[in-house]
């Protein structure tokens, strides 16, 4: 990877940040992500804030698919 850092605002959920990053929270705590791309929560609903856990998605009260990790 070279050049400038890339940040993508998805508009539907998280902000995607390229490269391993240290994320400093409002309380000063630093959380490290070693991923090639990190998804930062913007909806504040994530149980793993500051990282996205897809909690921004619509929830429907109906039967639907739902496996685990595959």
């Amino acid at each position: 990877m070279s050049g400038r850092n890339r940040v993508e605002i998805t508009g539907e959920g998280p902000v995607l940040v390229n490269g391993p990053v240290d994320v400093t929270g409002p309380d000063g705590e630093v959380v490290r992500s070693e991923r090639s791309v990190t998804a930062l929560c913007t909806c504040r609903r994530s149980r793993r804030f500051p990282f996205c856990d897809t909690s921004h998605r619509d929830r429907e009260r109906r039967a639907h698919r739902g496996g685990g990790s595959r």
Partner: protein
Amino acid sequence: MTLTRQAPAPSTTEPALPAPRGPLSAAVLDALRTGGRPGGALDAVPDDVYGEDAQLTLYCLYELHYRGFAGVDPEREWDPELLTVRRDLERAFLARLREDAPVDDVRGPADVDAEMAGLLTEPTDADGTGVSHHLLRDGEPWQFREYLAHRSMYHLKEADPQAWVIPRLHGAAKAALVTVEHDEYGSGDPERVHARLFAAMMRAAGLDDGYGAYLDLAPAETLAEVTLMSMFGLHRALRGALVGQFAAVELTSSPGSDRLVRAIARMGLGPEVAEFYAEHVEADAVHEQLVRRGVIRPLLAAEPELAADVVFGVRASSFLAERLERRLLGAWGARATSLREPLPPIG
């Protein structure tokens, strides 16, 4: 340089050949064991290509492309007679899947977006009918261990079937798919390879983490999910379907993994058991974005005619996933094993 034919070196990392489940698998496994030619039983593909005999045969033929089997010459991977059996099974498998996962309604990339939007809507914890919902609400440790035994058929080679598609993609789609695969393989850290995290979870849950250790216990419904990925990955003509299968996994995995983390805590199984699924909550939240934005969008911009196959990959993998879920929940509802035989008691 002199090329000499060498006998395969003994290996302790290759799995043992499984027991046959019918005439076709008996003939193919016998040929693999003895080094001989597959016999006359190969003329007929079993009527039920979703069944035990067909799926075990297909699984074992594909396994020659991954780790192979102990005592089997690695060159059998390219044995023309075995490849002919594989092709006949694949054609029957694909024909059934095309019937069971029709895509007549797909006209172009806009229909792929609609299909993805459907995958992104989650049921509430209380309403979901899937295995992860069951495990979260009512699951018991023995059921969770069975779930891991089923899943080990894929997760101990996690991301390998999808790696076959890399040379079949180009440009932005290839770059984004490799970013996801890189993460699956631990981003350069062998301790973080997802297959290794799965093996650690199996050990922590009291299971055998050996590659292929539960093959004899894994029913056809479990094997079919893996043969599907291998078939899509190994056929360039099915690259759109492979991408669709990959998307279906990555889009649905994060919330499902989160339920499993909470299920593990509720069952009192301990954080070392939860590590694999905890990793997938965050990882697959990123992968979902990369697959949709980075892989599918540029792929369909370059090859819009692949739209129907991408949706086929989503629907075929969802169809097989639902068949497996029915087997698990049906068996557990009757307090019976969902495997072909119960797991041995934990020592």
